[in-house]
């Protein structure tokens, strides 16, 4: 072994800087290879499931390709469905970096969207210019969402309340709260069939990115993902967050304001989800009603975990999920499968992914003792 290792080691050292990069790449590759392996295993398991049902897995994946990414229409459909997922996934990713598992994105989305719709009522009736109205609505959505999840963070730090349960229960409270007002005092009485708030009107809706059928929420999501990535990796705040996430006691011992960090991270997360709610109201529905509760918050959890809570990785993963959901309809129609099939695929992905967490650090190929460890 030593005869081979020696010259290799010397060659590695002599490569100098280039050696460093290749070592870092190999270590980093683990974080891409294992999720990809998890996806591949999911694909195999799901194919077995399909074969047991008597359906062709090849046809399934062909339809996912066609319905999600194959035609111009499909691509736009996919991007449309990915937009809320990017934002709700960010709402899970940021608290996860500080060590909190927050699954309340759905609630923050609903109350954020509701706040945006409510704030719009006096502005629309007062004929305030659309751009200003939309800015105010977005701000309202983000603020309410931030407060919503901020409460969860505060409860966690000040009282030790489990943030996962708290955020989930807050979701139910948020939905009930919205329903109470939408069906009651804030109901638009000109629409007897479905309780909603007043529609904001076509003139005030967020438009589509020129040349496409996708609204601006997608760009907002991508921009926020990039900003949060920079925040986490390049600022002192981000560094403090990662330290606190790794070891809260050590961070406290160092004098980091862990409590403030937790609440701020939760507030930013809630603001992202609230912004998703704003786009649901201002770009899709035009009003707040029970349709806001569409499960984007929960799918966002899955997206964030698959992306290992890395804001940049969330973008491609959200697009992948958007593609799977977008092709769900086509699969249902062509293969005669029930619509729950896509849920089975998502669930399987999540379970296999969680199980793959045990694989980190086990593969020798990623353990490189290279140029960075000079004796």
């Amino acid at each position, binding site marked *: 072994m030593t005869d081979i290792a020696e010259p290799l080691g010397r060659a590695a050292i002599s490569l100098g800087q280039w050696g460093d990069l290749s070592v870092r790449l190999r270590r980093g590759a683990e974080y891409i290879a294992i999720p990809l392996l998890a996806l591949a295993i999911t694909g195999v398991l799901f194919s077995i499931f399909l074969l047991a049902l008597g359906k062709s897995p090849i046809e399934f994946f*062909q339809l996912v390709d066609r*319905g999600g990414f194959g035609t111009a229409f499909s691509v736009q459909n996919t991007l*449309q469905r990915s937009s809320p997922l990017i934002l709700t996934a960010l709402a899970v990713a940021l608290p996860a970096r500080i060590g909190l598992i927050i699954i309340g994105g759905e609630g923050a989305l609903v109350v954020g969207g509701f706040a945006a719709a409510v704030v719009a009522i006096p502005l629309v009736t007062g004929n305030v210019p659309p751009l200003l109205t939309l800015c105010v609505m977005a701000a309202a959505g983000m603020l309410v969402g931030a407060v919503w999840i901020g409460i969860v963070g505060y409860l966690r730090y000040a009282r030790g309340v489990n943030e996962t349960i708290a955020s989930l229960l807050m979701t139910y409270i948020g939905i009930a709260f919205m329903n109470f007002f939408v069906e009651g005092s804030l109901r638009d009485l000109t629409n007897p069939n479905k309780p909603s708030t007043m529609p904001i009107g076509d003139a005030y809706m967020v438009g589509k990115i020129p040349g496409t059928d996708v609204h601006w929420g997608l760009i907002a999501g991508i921009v926020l993902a990039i900003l949060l990535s920079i925040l986490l990796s390049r600022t002192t705040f981000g560094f403090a967050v990662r330290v606190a996430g790794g070891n809260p006691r050590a961070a406290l011992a160092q004098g980091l304001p862990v409590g403030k960090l937790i609440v701020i991270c939760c507030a930013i997360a809630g603001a992202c989800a609230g912004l998703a709610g704003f786009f649901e109201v201002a770009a899709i529905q035009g009003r707040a009603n029970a349709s806001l509760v569409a499960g984007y918050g929960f799918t966002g959890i899955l997206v964030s975990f698959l992306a290992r809570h890395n804001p940049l990785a969330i973008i491609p993963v959200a697009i992948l999920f958007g593609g799977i959901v977008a092709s769900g309809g086509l699969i249902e129609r062509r293969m005669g499968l*029930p619509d729950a099939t896509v849920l089975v695929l998502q669930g399987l992905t999540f379970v296999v992914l969680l199980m793959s967490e045990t694989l980190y650090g086990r593969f020798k190929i990623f353990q490189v003792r290279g140029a960075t460890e000079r004796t």
Partner: protein
Amino acid sequence: MPQMTFNRRVFLKTGAAALVATGSAARIARAGNVIIGIVYVGPRDDFGWNQAHAVAAQALKTIPGVTVVEEENVPETDACSKAMESMINLDNANIILGTSFGYFDPFMVDLAKKYAKVELRHAAPLWSASKHPMNLGSYFGYLNQAHYVDGVAAGLSTKSNKLGFVAAKPIASVLSNINSFMLGAKKSNPNASVQVIFTGDWSLPVREAEATNTLVDAGNDVITCHVDSPKVVIETAEKRGVKTCGHNASQAPLAPKGFITGAEYKWVTIYKGYATELAEGKKLPNMVAGGYESDMVQNTPFGAGADEAARKAATVAIADLKNKKPIYVGPLKDNKGKVVIDKTYDNLDPFLDQMNYLLEGVQGSIT
């Protein structure tokens, strides 16, 4: 052994080829066909609203030259927009049938404006020539006629003279069913009365079960309903040992002992009409509606709960309705004492579509 390897290779090759072939078959566009896309708000086997449409879709599939693509569990959000657009773009559908009330505005209206060459039809009387594009339209059935027949049979099946009705929302089409049911019951049994409980939404299984139990506890021994899926109501009533009348689709298998008859839609009449007209290249009508006189509604075949007298009376009522005999013979008061129906109205008269009251004989309130 070479023999086995050879066979395995051949098997794998042909297997793979078969899989690929089935895959590519899915992408072949069938030229010249009528392609119908149907979107359901719930599951196809819900023993209710969606099943009624699915049953008609099944009948459509047997017509040569007609392809049907269906998607179920599509909520009344922009998901339905996306589902319909997917059918138009990826399946080349010529006509889209949206079966749920909330699909129409703004989703189907906007889609009709965007895809001017595709016909869209919606299962509720919301289309209006002055407001909506011409490639959009409405269709529905006057189910209240079938509820009238239910009432005639129920009036002769009750011992307590009290009939219970579990209703979803107090909108015109639901109120019309309740009132028609009561009028039918009173026709065969002048002492009968109807008690109604509103659950608040189209599909709330827990509340529907609670309402059914409440009605049975209050002495009602025949239960019927207007909810999306009557499965829960019928099963709960059957467990309590009372008789039942169905709604939307056939729930007869769910109540082997107590089922009388049920008010069912006969969507296949309308759907076959659309398919034929499309195949012949004719312009589709924008508004299609009717009851027994156009064969657009039907009653479930009688169950074990219907005795000889009930069956006879119901059959006579059906024949009368096919001859357009009016249900609403005025003057009629509402259950607060005010005269709301001043004269006799033809069964398809639009005046009856504005119903926002419960007639005298129905115990319950709208608000």
